[in-house]
């Protein structure tokens, strides 16, 4: 039986050997006929100094990077500054990224490092500022979490957005509330979610 973490490990391997569709051409997305613009596409455009591509990357990853900083115990202002420093690091590293297909985990790792650095500078006794979070390792199971976001990035497009909306929000929205955003009737959100998850699972190489 293949567990999620085994599948995630496998997806990283598959990406390296090129068995997963990469960014050479936009992928077809979730059956909606949507051409998915991959992170690698956007990074290539950023290297050509395209500010719109940069804005799209910010739009994709702003919340994730900010979340890592908040998760690491920073207050809103410091977390915003960590996000700022992380995107400066991305601008700096555009030509040196180790793997364009794994931008999500790269950003998360930089943000995590910056978060610890910020906390250390403010003193080791700085209280955690994560309301309601237990006093455990805030980055427990980091490998799984980063690999999951890398896989979501490969999924891309509306499929990624739908899964983020359904599973990564503190307050899970109703299908009816999501329907207008995704241009579908409420009754179609469930099946769409199922097919998105199935595609994600396939990406992870967890097919039975």
């Amino acid at each position: 039986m293949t567990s999620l973490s085994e599948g995630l490990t496998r997806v990283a391997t598959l990406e390296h050997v090129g068995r997963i569709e990469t960014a050479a051409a936009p992928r077809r997305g979730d059956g909606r006929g949507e051409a998915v613009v991959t992170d690698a596409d956007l990074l290539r455009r950023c290297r050509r100094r395209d500010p719109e591509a940069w804005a799209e990357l910010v739009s994709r990853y702003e919340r994730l990077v900010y979340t890592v900083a908040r998760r690491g115990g920073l207050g809103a202002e410091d977390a915003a500054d960590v996000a700022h420093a992380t995107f400066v690091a991305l601008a700096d590293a555009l030509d040196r990224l180790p793997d364009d297909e794994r931008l999500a985990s790269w950003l998360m790792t930089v943000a995590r490092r910056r978060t610890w650095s910020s906390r250390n500078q403010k003193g080791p006794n700085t209280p955690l500022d994560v309301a309601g979070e237990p006093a455990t390792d805030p980055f427990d199971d980091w490998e799984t979490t980063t690999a999951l976001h890398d896989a979501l990035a490969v999924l891309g497009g509306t499929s990624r957005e739908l899964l983020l909306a359904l599973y990564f929000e503190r307050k899970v929205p109703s299908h009816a509330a999501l329907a207008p955003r995704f241009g579908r009737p409420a009754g179609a959100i469930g099946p769409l979610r199922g097919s998105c998850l199935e595609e994600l699972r396939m990406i992870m190489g967890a097919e039975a």
Partner: protein
Amino acid sequence: MTTVRPSFTELVDWLDGRLDVDEAEAVASYVAEGDPQTLESVEWILGFVDGAVSMPLEQPPPELGGRLRGIFDRLHRPRAGRDWCDATLLHDARDRARSGGVHLAFESDLGRFVVDAMPARAGEVDVEGLVLQPPGVAGVDLAFLAKGALRRAVRTAPDGRFEALGLPVEVDELWLTSGATRVRAVLDLRS
């Protein structure tokens, strides 16, 4: 007892409590049969949900997006306009005989700052420095350029320190940006 294997979407709906009673019972009875393929799907879905809820996404302050989008423009926009001011060189010390290090100190609208460069690999220097940031300034973006081309971008730590390792020694310009304030300093990192 059902003999029809539930679809992946049905399993998702079942685990999410979205099936009506009869459908849910049919799926539950099939899962109870222990079909390996079905159990693997159930395990995967549960693992995904666990992974997702372990780090829900936070909502950043509304102004953050604009701030992050602006980083790219500020690093690549040609130095022009009235929002720039030049830093004044206060101190220039070069140790040609021994370490080969360069120590520069400047005065600017963003406060005083120092830049220390030490020779690294051939044609490169390791740069460390400190910006004495005005109160309320959490960080300053720094851009090192050579002949107008961006070679490195860093942001100061909350205490104003910064580091840029392996910079080409040809770097001849430093931009400092905080909010609307932009400062330019002429650099010569050759000892």
